């Protein structure tokens, strides 16, 4: 610590006792009372925050910043630190002291520096400061007085936002007793301070003009919300400016400062004008006031460079509001006289930056369309700034040309910027051109302010130059700079260049031929300058390696080749040891990547960078957001960008924000068009393929995709990421696959016709490989992930099941069934679990799965019943009675309600009973005038889930990304405007959302399914003549009906290593099945059904239908032995159909109030039909609907006698 090695510390600064100063020893009593500092502050000598123990604001950062220092160091100080109150008291006394000289010394060396440590000055010091202000003649004292008065003025008091930092000043109330005059508040002193300062600022005495300038500056700190203060300031400022301008133009100093090269009067005027402009800049702009504009524009000719800077800042800001007036004023005062050209050589970087902005605004102003001459003058100055020795100015000019001015730039401006950069030519004006010294620039770098630009003797006419070439050379030389800020800024400029280029690509009419040669344009333009000296080369471009423009045409470079070489320069920058520079370079590369080029190199660079642990998470997320923005600018690049994003997910899962990644996925999925959706989804599923973050698995699994997840935090992050991916997959798989139950052309029963196991799966996967792939991944996750992932996977699966048509729903149903009984067979799961131990409890998902399975049970059961009823009616040639229709409609609504609990479906379109039900339901609706959209009151709608979809019930939602980005603050400029990417997304959403994937049409298998359909229809017709057969076939849409091909899925997933998982399905009453199945080798089951289908091709339909029936029976409560399956099936072909289980009746023992939508209110004594039991609940049906209109639902088992 500093105090131990004898050096002075900040504590010493405060602690050295002002009382020790001769002459005032007696005047500084020790004031422990009312001064909170000393005891606490003395704990930690050494630094600012050590004293800040008192200050709530400063305390915590101090600890935060230097945890090593939090241990309390024993008091090592001999002297007690001086408290704020002691300082205040000393100030009061010294201000009143008779001996001005000694008190000045003490003030300057003791009191004022110590007071500076505190972040605010309490108003009770103001009277003493004002006294000093009036009486003291010591310039040092006065300078401090202005400093503190300014701080008193700027203090926002109770707002807590003190402009400075430092130790919090102790509570002023505690100091009130120190005041001779009693409690002094800010409100008391501020008017006095303002009064005194403005009096001084208005003092026209030349001798005291330095004080006048200081007073004006201090006065600027006064709150400008006060009109009185504001008016006074305007009065003073305009008074000065008027006087200065009336006195005529000040002779300009060139270059050097502090040297008295002009007469005193001019110097004073220049000083005052500077002070006035500086104050004016801090005052609110007054657009529309010609005097304001006039004085500001006059300021451009100010002799003081900082004054010029302020004037240009004001004018450029005004130019955004009233470009025409500004352009005219500047043209009249500054442009014509060559003042603006002089600014090009002004020794003030920021002045030239503001000049670039001003010229940019005026050269693009629409209102100046009538005055192309003026515009071109501004444009020329802007182009000339590209030659500026300071990188800051040059880059600002490049950004302006590229259309990057503020965050609100429009896409057209950016595209136009790219066109301008690639085609424009810098022609030097006749006036003395700004020439900068190349060697000076090389020396300067950006970080170092440029030395005064050396003047050259009148330069000869110079050849025009292609802007693009200038910029490229400048950037390349910047990339060779060893200075990090220069590298960072250059990379940023390249990034902006990429943005403008992407904008030009995406907009029509802005195409730039990148194989063209900018030099050709120059040659054309410069033909009239053919006689100009060839040796007059572009000396202003540093380290110019390229042959002069006038050299043989063979040396000409195309835009493309120059861009390539720039990209190469950016790539080499990735070797910089500063991670932020590397980040900027990678962002630049992402933006410069063209959709048609190979991106292997970029991929390799990013992959290499991600292995570096020094990357901070925030920077990585920024790069991900850059990918996002890049995608929005060029939707064609979705695939490339997703691959890059996947790198982040695989390499640094612990550092990236899953929200950001999801945003990227979602945008890509929505925007990359029908053809890219599969790829987009694949990118998501890659995350699911990541090995679990266990060290053991890391070494054995996927060595090429090793996950940096050895520490628990990363493991947790990875898990979150996987969860996010699973959720995303479930939510979006249907969209990506364009497979919706309500748009499916395949009736639900059709799947059952594809009873050959392999054929069914083949049909499923070939009909829609995207969805099939997603299902596979989710199934793996439901087995293999951590518990949280499994839960999300199960939810994702049910979402897909609900939203998809057959055979996907069936597939999921099968799977969920298997999952629910996984415990009995988990020994065979080993291959599927990625090595993770499932534990004795199996998947542990039964509580999650049972409602899902029950839902699907209900759906399939209702479908069965519907088909049977329809057949009955058809056979009897009977119309549907209103009662029957009502029952059907109720079932439909009930199922819809149930379905809506799991995920959003468009109620008006969704048909849980299958497409065949739509006619009947519509009949009922029409009869009873029920609005199909009435269901929009369902919980999913109410909770906003349906916001994901648009009101037209098209899927997915339009424009969700446009206005409300998922992650706050992620929106960027390109996305906010009406960009083509947005339009593309939205057009796509509006039009193409219902398109079936191409693969479906190309594939023969869907046709196969139609042929099955035909066969099925034929069967139905034939069966209609036979009651028995008819009854059997009526159950064909039940999920259980696929028992015989239940191994379908197993063989399909055989490669994944859990063939037996799909060995059978059952209802919630699994136990008999479970026992039998667990003792059965599943391979045999597979063989059985395979044999069935292969050995008896003509019969497989019948057999499978039998299987279906058998399953249907099982569902109803019968259980069959799997052992006897073939016989059973064959035997039951001729059996009479047993339509339902024997109804079981019960009576409500107690009143029961439903606790949810699925539950049913009971009144004691009510008679009930018990439909089935699940997890301690009966699903019961009442004889008549209760008061709430519900007829069936769940009730606790104990409430019912059975």
């Amino acid at each position, binding site marked *: *610590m*500093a105090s131990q090695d004898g050096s*002075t*510390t*900040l504590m010493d*600064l405060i602690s050295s006792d002002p009382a020790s100063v001769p002459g005032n020893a007696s005047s500084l009593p020790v004031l422990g009372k009312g001064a909170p500092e000393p005891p606490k502050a003395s704990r930690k000598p050494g*630094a600012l*925050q050590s004293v800040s123990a008192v200050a709530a*604001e400063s305390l915590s*950062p*101090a600890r*935060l*910043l*230097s945890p090593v*220092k939090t241990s309390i160091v024993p008091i090592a100080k001999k002297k007690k630190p001086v408290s704020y109150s002691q300082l205040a008291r000393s100030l009061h006394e010294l201000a009143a002291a008779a001996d001005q000289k000694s008190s000045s010394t003490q003030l300057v*060396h003791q009191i004022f*520096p110590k007071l500076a440590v505190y972040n605010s000055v309490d108003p009770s010091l103001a009277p003493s400061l004002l006294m000093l202000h009036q009486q003291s003649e010591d*310039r040092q004292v006065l*300078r*401090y007085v*202005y*400093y503190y008065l*300014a701080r008193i003025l*700027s203090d926002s008091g109770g707002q807590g936002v003190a*402009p*400075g*930092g*430092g130790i919090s000043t102790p509570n002023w109330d505690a100091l009130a007793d120190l005041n001779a005059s009693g409690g002094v508040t800010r409100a008391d002193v501020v008017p006095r301070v303002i009064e005194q300062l403005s009096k001084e600022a208005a003092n026209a005495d030349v001798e005291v*003009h*330095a004080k006048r*300038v*200081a007073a004006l500056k201090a006065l600027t700190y006064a709150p400008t919300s006060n009109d009185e203060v504001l008016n006074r300031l305007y009065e003073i400022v305009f008074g000065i400016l008027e006087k200065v301008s009336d006195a005529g133009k000040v002779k300009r100093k060139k270059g050097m*400062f*502090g040297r008295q090269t*002009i007469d005193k009067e001019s*110097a004073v005027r220049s*000083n005052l004008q500077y002070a006035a402009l*500086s104050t004016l*800049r*801090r005052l609110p702009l007054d657009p529309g006031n010609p005097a304001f504009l006039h004085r500001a524009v006059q300021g451009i000719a100010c002799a*003081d460079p*900082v004054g010029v800077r302020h004037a240009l800042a004001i004018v450029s800001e005004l130019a955004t509001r009233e470009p025409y007036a500004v352009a005219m004023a500047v043209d009249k005062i500054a442009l014509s006289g060559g003042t603006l050209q002089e600014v090009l050589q002004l020794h003030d*970087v*920021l002045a030239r*930056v503001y000049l670039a902005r001003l010229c940019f605004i005026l050269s693009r102003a629409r209102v100046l369309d009538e005055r192309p001459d003026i515009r071109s003058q501004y444009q020329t100055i802007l182009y000339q700034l590209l030659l500026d020795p*300071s*990188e*800051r100015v040059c880059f600002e000019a490049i950004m302006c040309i590229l259309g990057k001015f503020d965050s609100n730039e429009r896409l057209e401006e950016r595209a136009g910027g790219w066109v301008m950069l690639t085609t424009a030519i810098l022609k030097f004006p006749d006036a003395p051109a700004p020439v900068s010294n190349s060697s000076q620039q090389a020396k300067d770098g*950006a*970080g170092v*302010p440029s030395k005064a630009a050396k003047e050259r003797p009148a330069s000869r006419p110079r050849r025009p130059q292609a802007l693009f070439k200038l910029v490229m050379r400048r950037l390349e030389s910047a990339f060779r700079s060893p*200075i*990090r*800020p*220069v590298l960072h*800024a250059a990379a940023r400029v390249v990034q902006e260049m990429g943005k403008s280029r992407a904008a030009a690509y995406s907009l029509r009419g802005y195409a730039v031929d990148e194989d063209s040669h900018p030099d050709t344009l120059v040659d054309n333009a410069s033909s009239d300058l053919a006689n100009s000296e060839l040796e007059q080369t572009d000396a202003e471009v540093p380290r110019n390696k390229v042959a002069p423009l006038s050299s043989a045409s063979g040396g000409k470079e195309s835009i493309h080749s120059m861009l390539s070489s720039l990209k190469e320069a950016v790539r080499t920058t990735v070797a910089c040891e*500063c991670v*932020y520079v590397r*980040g900027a370079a990678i962002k630049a590369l992402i933006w410069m990547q063209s959709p048609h080029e190979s991106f292997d190199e970029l991929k390799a660079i990013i992959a290499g960078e991600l292995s570096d642990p020094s990357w901070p998470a925030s920077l990585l997320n*920024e790069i991900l957001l850059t990918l996002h923005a890049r995608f929005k600018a060029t939707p064609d690049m979705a695939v490339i960008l997703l691959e890059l994003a996947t790198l982040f997910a695989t390499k640094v899962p612990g550092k990236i924000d899953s929200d950001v990644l999801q945003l990227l996925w979602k945008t890509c999925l929505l925007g990359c068009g029908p053809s890219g959706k599969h790829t987009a989804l694949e990118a998501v599923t890659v995350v699911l393929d990541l090995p679990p973050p266990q060290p053991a698995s890391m070494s054995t699994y996927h060595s090429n995709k090793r996950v940096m997840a050895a520490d628990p935090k990363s493991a947790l992050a990875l898990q979150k990421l996987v969860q996010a991916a699973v959720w995303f997959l479930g939510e979006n798989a249907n969209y990506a696959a364009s497979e919706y139950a309500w748009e499916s052309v395949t009736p639900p029963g059709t799947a059952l016709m594809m009873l050959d196991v392999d054929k069914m799966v083949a049909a499923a996967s070939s009909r829609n490989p995207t969805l099939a792939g997603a299902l596979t991944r989710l199934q793996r996750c439901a087995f293999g992930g951590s518990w949280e992932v499994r839960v999300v996977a199960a939810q994702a699966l049910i979402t897909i099941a609900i939203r998809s048509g057959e055979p996907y729903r069936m597939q999921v149903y099968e799977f969920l069934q298997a999952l629910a009984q996984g415990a009995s067979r988990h020994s065979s799961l080993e291959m599927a679990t990625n090595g993770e131990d499932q534990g004795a409890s199996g998947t542990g998902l039964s509580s999650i799965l049972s409602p899902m399975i029950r839902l699907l049970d209900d759906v399939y059961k209702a479908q069965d019943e519907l088909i049977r009823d329809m057949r009955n009616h058809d056979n009897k040639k009977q119309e549907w009675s209103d009662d029957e229709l009502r029952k059907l409609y109720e079932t439909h609504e009930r199922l819809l309600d149930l379905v809506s609990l799991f995920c959003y479906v468009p109620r008006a379109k969704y048909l849980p009973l299958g497409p065949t039900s739509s006619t009947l339901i519509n009949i009922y609706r029409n009869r009873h005038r029920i609005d199909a959209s009435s269901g929009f009151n369902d919980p999913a709608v109410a909770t906003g889930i349906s916001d994901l979809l648009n009101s037209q019930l098209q899927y997915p939602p339009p424009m969700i990304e446009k206005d409300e980005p998922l992650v706050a603050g992620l929106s960027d400029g390109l996305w906010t405007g009406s960009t083509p990417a947005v339009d593309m997304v939205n057009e796509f959403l509006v039009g193409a959302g219902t398109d079936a994937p191409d693969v479906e049409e190309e594939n023969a298998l869907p046709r196969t399914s139609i042929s099955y359909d035909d066969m099925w229809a034929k069967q139905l017709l034939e069966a209609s003549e036979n009651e028995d057969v008819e009854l059997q076939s009526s159950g064909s849409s039940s999920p259980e009906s696929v028992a015989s091909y239940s191994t379908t899925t197993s063989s399909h997933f055989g490669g994944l290593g859990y063939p037996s998982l799909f060995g059978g399905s059952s209802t919630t009453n699994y136990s008999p099945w479970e026992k039998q199945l667990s003792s059965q080798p599943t391979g045999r089951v597979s063989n059985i059904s395979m044999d069935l289908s292969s050995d008896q091709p003509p019969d497989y339909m019948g057999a499978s239908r039998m299987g279906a029936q058998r399953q249907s029976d099982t569902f109803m409560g019968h259980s069959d032995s799997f052992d006897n399956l073939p016989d059973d099936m064959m035997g039951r072909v001729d059996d009479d159909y047993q339509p339902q289980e024997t109804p079981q009746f019960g009576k409500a023992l107690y009143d029961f109030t439903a606790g949810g939508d699925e539950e049913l209110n009971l009144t004691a004594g009510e008679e009930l039909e018990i439909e089935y039991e699940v997890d301690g609940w009966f699903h019961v049906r009442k004889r008549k609907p209760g008061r709430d209109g519900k007829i069936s639902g769940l009730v606790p088992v104990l409430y019912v006698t059975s």
Partner: protein
Amino acid sequence: MLMCVLFTNTAGNILLERFQGVQAEERLHWRSFLVKLGTDNLSGAHNEELFVASHKSVYVVYTAIGDISVFVVGKDEYDELALAEVLYAITSCVKDICQKAPTERAFLDKYGRVCLCLDEIVFEGTLEHTDKDRIRRLARLKPIAD
């Protein structure tokens, strides 16, 4: 907007800070972020070697001079290059006041003057003067030019 100028010693203790337009709670984050940057990167750095960092659209440029680390944070027109200008003005002033590369002691001895000079360099969140001579004159209440 020049959001922050911060001086720390080599151990990461804050010696002097000036914030503009940064809320109190954000200041805590900035302090810790800057000090961490300094401790991570500035050990072994050359005098006045410039370092850069960024967070979204906010830039940070920092350097070490003697025992003192100086950080400047800015946004909008105060990008990394403009911040380098600011930093250059600050370091040349500090060197001027403390003679050569300052020790912590020398810095604290001249604390008041550093504050006055900083007041001339950074004025309400903008860069004001960059010229060493001008700053010296203004800090002594002399006319900029006479």
